[in-house]
């Protein structure tokens, strides 16, 4: 059984069953990554094109590796290269890429809805690698895969997402995915960085970080973009850190075995202190490995692969 949709545009419209299928398949993919020779011929002859309108070495590398481990041909186009330049419309660029023979188009774009616009105009599969502040489904899927590795199940699980919720596509995708699978999600951040009516997405909204942390199984700390301070959305990094920074004392409010996550890259000493980021509770490095596994699973499933059950 494959996935219901031929695209992965976001988790809002992805059924719970598809999320579980992806996570299960990612388990099998992770076994491949653990091998000495990390290469299987599954996607031989398939072409994956990454179209990045925003810089993100991490996400791009993760997709590149995922494609390579599955023997797909991967080609990257970035906003600086000539084929993606101002003047040519997004739709034209996407159609051109498709005409070159792409089977899967991975797009990262600063504008919300960009992946959906592309999906509406091409026949190949489209993966949203982040569109503005809308969604970043592969990040949420890797977060969920990591949570499941440590916590086993989502139902009744308490997850806290801390930081700039307003500008976070990671938060939105995590909220959709986690609530669909039965987790209780709290979000916390300064009032100026909380999106309006976000409680209607089914989350508890806090301005006091302590409230969100109390009894949490998972603490997902978001990166605070330094430019938001320049936009005067909060007064200073110092005050942000004092009110919302995750330190050992605050983490003490969460469950004893709570895990700490971060989509990276970290602003150490701002949203998270070094001793927490590097502690045994931190699963930040595991998230990176899992990112490749989840993206392998998606590439595999979207190109028609059958779901694979995890061996264990």
């Amino acid at each position, binding site marked *: 059984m494959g996935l219901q949709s031929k695209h992965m545009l976001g988790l*809002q419209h992805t059924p719970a069953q598809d999320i579980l299928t992806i996570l299960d398949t990612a388990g099998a993919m992770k076994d491949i990554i653990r091998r000495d020779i990390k290469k299987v011929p599954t996607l031989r002859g398939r072409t994956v094109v990454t179209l990045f309108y925003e810089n993100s070495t991490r996400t791009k590398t993760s997709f590149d590796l995922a494609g390579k481990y599955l023997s797909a041909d991967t080609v990257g186009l970035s906003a600086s290269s000539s084929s993606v330049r101002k003047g040519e*419309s*997004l*739709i034209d660029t996407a159609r051109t890429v498709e005409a070159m023979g792409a089977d899967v188009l991975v797009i990262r*774009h600063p*504008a*919300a*809805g*960009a992946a*959906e*616009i592309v999906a509406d105009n091409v026949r190949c599969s489209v993966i949203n690698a982040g*569109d*503005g*502040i*809308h*969604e970043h489904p592969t990040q949420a899927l890797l977060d969920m895969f990591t949570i499941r590795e440590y916590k086993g199940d989502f139902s009744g699980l308490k997850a806290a997402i801390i930081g700039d919720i307003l500008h976070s*596509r990671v938060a*939105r995708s995590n909220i959709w995915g986690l609530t669909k699978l039965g987790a209780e999600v709290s979000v916390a951040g300064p009032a100026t960085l909380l*999106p*309006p*009516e*976000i409680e*209607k*997405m089914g989350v508890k909204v806090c301005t006091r970080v302590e409230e969100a942390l109390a009894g949490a199984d998972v603490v997902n700390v978001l990166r605070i973009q330094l430019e938001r301070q320049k936009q005067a959305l909060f007064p200073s990094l110092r005050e942000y850190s004092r009110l919302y920074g995750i330190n050992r004392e605050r983490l003490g409010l969460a469950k004893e075995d709570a895990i700490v996550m971060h989509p990276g890259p970290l602003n150490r000493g701002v949203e998270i202190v070094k001793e927490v980021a590097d502690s045994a509770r931190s699963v930040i490095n595991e998230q990176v490995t899992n990112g490749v596994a989840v993206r392998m699973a998606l590439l595999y499933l979207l190109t028609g692969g059958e779901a694979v059950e995890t061996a264990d």
Partner: protein
Amino acid sequence: MKLLIKGGKLVNPEKQLLEKADVLVENGVITAMESSLSERDAEVVEAGGKLVCPGLIDMHVHLREPGFEHKETIATGTMAAARGGFTAVACMPNTNPVADNAPVIRFILDRAAAEGTVKVYPIGAITKGSKGKEITEMADLKAAGAVAVSDDGVPVHDAGVMRRAMQYASMLGLTVISHCEDKSLVAEGVMHQGYQSTVLGLPGMPAEAEEVMVARDIILAEATGCRVHIAHISTAGAVELVRQAKKRGVKVTCEVTPHHFTLTDQAVNGYDTNTKVNPPLRTAADVAAVKQGLADGTIDVIATDHAPHTVDEKEVEYQYAPFGLVGLETAVGLVFTELVDTGILTVPEAVAKLSTNPARIMAVPGGRLAVGEQADITIIDPEALEKVDPGSFAGKGKNTPFAGRKLKGLPVMTIVKGKIVMKDRRVTVSSV
């Protein structure tokens, strides 16, 4: 040339009733209105079962000429108006150059005389270049033919400038039309701020951005005695502010667009850039409040804010697309489908908001059917059905969020100065 309109129901907004009568038009003027008229050498228009209305007037359109002729021209925009049942339109000054001086006003009037299918009333700018700093030569604008002043799209941010503009306009008897939007509250917003913007990840435009400026301009209107007309009102709070101001006797009027009484921010789902408009599509509660405002008379006018853009301009990421949608060719159908058929407005009330009231607010002729009046007449078939097809639009702009929508109640004839310019949903003349 004689025209005899037979068997229709005459809509008289002033009397709130429909009477069955024939209308005789001679040399562009209504010369008789009686039952069972006959005239041997007149062209007969059978209007049985149809509504014969004073010519509809859209007091808020963007004709894009001069400067943006790739989007629309005075020729194509007035053809769209004719097809939509409008016999006159008032055009906003955000052209290039801005209509902030008499020569531009005269240029528009000259083009309209040469190429226009319906009447065109230019609106002048409030400030030079619509930059919000210095007020325009309003006396000159008025003398050249401007019927009101507005900095639509780029609202006057500085309250001191707006106050002076109102004092000055008031002295000249000009209405100030205000697009109410505090840009500092809108920032990069592209849709209504609320749950939908949160989910879609699009920067929001809060209702307060509109309401703060509606409140300010009502207060300034009260202080200066100026007649102020609030353009495209869209929030429940703004409607309530106008309602209260009217109770106090402030000389304030307002308009709503068909898209604001029909659609909500739910329509933005899917990122269709034809739903990107300023003010943005609001919530269901706002739509209900706007309908209430229409029903109780708080909202005087229905105007389209017809804002054409090319397909290329709109076929981009939502955040990068220009604001605006076309409205001239769907307005009547939406009024009848959403307001008349549902009992929110009677036919005379609807026609008052589409004709009589805009004529009164801009102090232009029309708005009533009477012997001796110029024969600007719109005939509406309240039973006619149509699916909106942008491909059939007479205007250049096809950017409508209503494609495929079923409408009931459509204009079937537009008569300007006694001349039939639209018949059976087709523009019959073009002076181009």
